[in-house]
């Protein structure tokens, strides 16, 4: 294709956009709404996953040993734990360390009254997991190991986090899919109107000997431009809104902020921008291509 042809095609695509303004606006608005929701879900999911990840990093299983267990057996158990695929890291906390920690946290200066370590049997392994969902399997295994007296775990947190995470993902994928279908439908309609408005021009082009590709390209470009514009607007809005919302949450729900760690806008924006534009252009391409194939039997 010649450079001049390429620019001519782009120009015609732009002219199409302005020629039926209202349909173009409607299409841009739906794509915009669709990608705005996508952006919203993306921001929520990204943050939620970040929160879950941070929380998961804190979720641990604590293993206590039988009374009078030998140091060798403790080390053997340590090796067994290390071999498990669920484990990301483990930490040994000796009875003395446990006592020191307890003293510091709860007793303060009153601790001087103790001459012996009251937590003599409280040595433990603190085990951190790769993934919270693996916790039940590991716990079952550990309970069967000789020399382990007690396995402490945080069941509630683990299952709730995984459950909520999956639910949000399913719901958002569902809603976004519906919105995509609506967007494709609307773009397809817009392009169809464009085609019917330009029926005469198209027939003249065909008489003169325009190739199918030449006739179709401006309409496909129109669809892709609508998609791109429809993507940039909501991304811009989300960029501005995001900081405001985070700020608001921080101020109004300050108690939550220790629990929740939010991502900064720049951390999510890179992916959001590229994915949105890609989706917008993709939807535009699909919508116009479908219509052009169906209604431009050249």
């Amino acid at each position, binding site marked *: 294709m010649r450079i*001049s042809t390429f620019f001519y095609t782009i120009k015609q695509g732009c002219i199409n956009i302005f020629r039926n303004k209202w349909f173009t606006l409607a299409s841009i608005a739906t794509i915009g709404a669709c990608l705005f929701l996508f952006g919203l879900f993306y921001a929520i999911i990204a943050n939620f996953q970040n929160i879950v990840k941070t929380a998961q990093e804190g979720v641990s299983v604590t293993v206590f040993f039988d009374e009078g267990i030998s140091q060798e057996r403790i080390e053997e158990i340590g090796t067994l734990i290390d071999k498990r695929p669920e484990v990301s890291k483990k930490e040994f906390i000796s009875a003395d360390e446990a006592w020191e920690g307890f003293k510091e946290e709860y007793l303060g200066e009153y601790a001087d009254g103790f001459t012996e370590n009251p937590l003599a049997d409280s040595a433990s392994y603190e085990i951190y997991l790769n993934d919270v969902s693996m916790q039940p399997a590991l716990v079952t295994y550990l309970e069967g190991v000789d020399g382990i007296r007690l396995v402490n775990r945080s069941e509630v947190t683990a299952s709730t986090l995984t459950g909520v995470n999956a639910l949000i993902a399913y719901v958002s994928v569902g809603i976004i899919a519906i919105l995509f279908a609506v967007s494709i439908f609307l773009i397809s309609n817009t392009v169809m109107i464009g085609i019917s408005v330009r029926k*005469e*021009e198209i027939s*003249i082009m065909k008489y003169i*000997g325009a190739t199918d590709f030449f006739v179709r390209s401006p309409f496909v470009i129109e669809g892709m431009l609508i998609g791109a514009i429809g993507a940039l607007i909501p991304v811009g809005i989300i960029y501005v809104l995001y900081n405001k919302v985070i700020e608001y949450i921080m101020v109004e729900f300050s108690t939550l902020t220790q629990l929740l760690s939010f991502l900064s806008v720049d951390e999510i924006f890179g992916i959001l921008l590229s994915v949105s534009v890609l989706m917008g252009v993709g939807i535009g391409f699909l919508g116009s291509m479908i219509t052009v194939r169906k209604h431009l039997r050249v």
Partner: protein
Amino acid sequence: MAKSEIRGKRKRKQFTGSDEIISLTNVSKAYATGAPALNGVNLHIQKGEFVFIVGDSGSGKSTMIKLLLRELVPTSGEINVMGYDLVRIRHRKIPKFRRNLGIVFQDFRLLKDRNVYENVAFAQRIVQVPSKDIKRNVPSILATVGLAGKYKAKPRQLSGGEQQRVAIARALVNRPSILLADEPTGNLDPKNSWEIMKLLEQINENGTTVLVVTHNREIVNAMQKRVVTMKKGVIVSDEEKGVYIDED
């Protein structure tokens, strides 16, 4: 395999460029409803001829033009234009074929939102002529049709005769071998009709084969060209230096 070989050979009868440029052999065309619009038409036109096609309303003249553009496919028969077998031509070859034709209609069919220059340049853009050549070709062809001073005007600012000149310029700018005109003077007054016909004659003198469908008896009789007369889908007369035959 054998079949495609036959097709390959048949698709493009070698076009020698010497004599026959259009040939219709036993061509019939029936639309979904009504009597056949064309019924066993045979017509052979040599390169460089000027041919009038006349006949009553509904006799099949426009149908013939549409078959020659490969807008329609005949129900039966063979059509060959410039070596292209229009019955078997592949869909994606049609644009290339049409670039050999210039087409003019009664209703001009200009792009109303573009000026004279753009309407003509449009035809060159479609066949991907480089911009610098377009800038040279368009003014030259506008001068040929007598519209040198009007290239910035929009179609609605032009008279019917002027609009038809723009359409002719558009049909000619890609230097077609054949010009097909379906009632080019149908919407024009006698003076403009004469000027347009004279323009077509001049184009023909420069080597383009010209086919003109018309109802203009006076012009046909005066111009002394080959006249093909149609009636109810058949050619009833075909005369060199013919005249417009009255229906009775």
